[in-house]
């Protein structure tokens, strides 16, 4: 710093020398605090104006292109009643009847209606709910007895595989012929359930329903025995 510039500096107000002036200010604690507060701050954020990289522009273009394709393909014609994006054409069900896998359908009907009592493995609960796995009732050549059981329910003392049960099963006449046929086919033919009995067709169920469909009270063991004779596994 030149002599000149120093001489233009105003003298300290009280006339004491510069050194003392600065020394005094060193002890001015609030001032020093404000200084250090200010010194740590950087300037307010500003922005540079670097251009948008080309690769980013390309990415945006690709994304917008994809979005167009996706919307064109999966817009479902903006139909409020279209719920399957893989389906093309008018909404509603496909007309062609599809082949139904009775075993898979039966497992579903079973999971939805029977697991509460007979359990998901079909072994029941000893003394309360009879088993369907390896059960003499299920293994019978003719399914008519158990069709009746499912349609109208079953109550009172019975023997399953020689074990006594005395409880009540609810009626399932709200199920369609096809669903009942499927669930019985499932419990009779599923290999791990060890019954190996012939499948049940919807026609068989329809025949039983036509004859006994009006029945509202559950069947009893003796009643069924009067029609079908004692339970005989094959």
């Amino acid at each position, binding site marked *: 710093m030149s002599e000149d510039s120093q001489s233009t500096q105003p003298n300290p107000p009280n006339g004491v020398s510069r050194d003392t002036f600065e020394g005094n200010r060193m002890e001015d604690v609030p001032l020093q605090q404000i200084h250090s507060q200010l010194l740590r701050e950087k300037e307010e954020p500003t922005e540079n104006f*670097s251009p948008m990289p080309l690769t980013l522009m390309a*990415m945006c273009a690709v*994304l917008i292109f994809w979005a167009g394709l996706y919307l064109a393909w999966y817009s*479902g014609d903006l139909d409020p009643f279209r719920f399957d994006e893989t389906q093309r054409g008018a909404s509603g069900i496909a007309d062609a009847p599809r082949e139904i896998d009775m075993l898979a359908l039966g497992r579903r009907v079973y999971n939805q209606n029977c697991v509460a009592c007979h359990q998901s493995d079909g072994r029941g609960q000893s003394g309360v709910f009879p088993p369907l796995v390896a059960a003499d009732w299920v293994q019978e050549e003719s399914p008519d007895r158990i069709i009746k059981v499912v349609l109208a329910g079953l109550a009172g003392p019975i023997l399953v595989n020689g074990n006594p049960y005395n409880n009540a099963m609810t009626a399932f006449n709200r199920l369609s012929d096809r669903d009942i046929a499927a669930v019985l086919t499932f419990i009779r033919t599923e290999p791990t359930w060890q019954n190996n009995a012939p499948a049940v067709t919807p026609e068989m169920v329809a025949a039983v329903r036509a004859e006994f469909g009006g029945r509202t009270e559950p069947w009893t063991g003796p009643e069924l025995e009067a029609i079908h004779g004692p339970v005989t596994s094959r």
Partner: protein
Amino acid sequence: MVDPHRFGAAYYLIPKVLGRPIHSYYLSVVGFWSLALFYNWAGVHHLIGGPVPVWVISAGTVASVMMVIPVVVTAVNHHMTVVGMQREVWRSPTLRFIVFGAINYTAVSLLGSTMALRSVNEVTHFTHFTVGHAHHGVYAFFTMIMFGSVYYMMPRLLKREWPSAFLIHTHWWACALGIMLMVVALHIGGWIQGLQMNALDEDGVPVFTFIETVRNTVPWLHARSISGLLLMIGHMAFFLNVFWMIFSKPAAVSDSKPTLLGA
């Protein structure tokens, strides 16, 4: 959601603490408007597979994927601002938390866009994957950025410095490791849960019973409990530091230097 807050905090604090301008004004404009345009539509991705028409879900999926634009643009902007100053970022408690949050914002958003694809969502929906994703967003990015902001604001409001660098260290490591553990555990566990839930054999029969799929998540949930413990340790350290700072006498001038973390 929490995005706008975070954008505000990160866009202000990163350049402010580093004393370096944001990389590109144009990028921030593109980021802002594309976010405004797509984010509201993206909410529908929570209903994929649910009882809503196909077109609504498709719109949600597209918007969620388009969120890649604001996310990548913002990521480039933040990254370019920070690049070359990693040491400063690592030494400043504020920036350490904020940059961690910003990195996780990129990660969680790109993952989120992927999860909005129907075929991915089929697996992840209804599982712990989604829970992990939610924590990834709200903790690893939002909460961490808020921690960083508090580290910035408190010394300026109270005119005194953070009393203990050790406690900041503890807070940082416990929270960063804790949340990463939680996110990784829930993502892996949830993905497995979703695959097992949907697995069908060739006859169309579920391979795993429902309760098996639930039981198989338990080890991952144990990992989550450990991560929760870590987070709690971090929060205690943070609380202690704040408490100490508020109730300590203002520091003497000589040591009124910002509390920085060793490299």
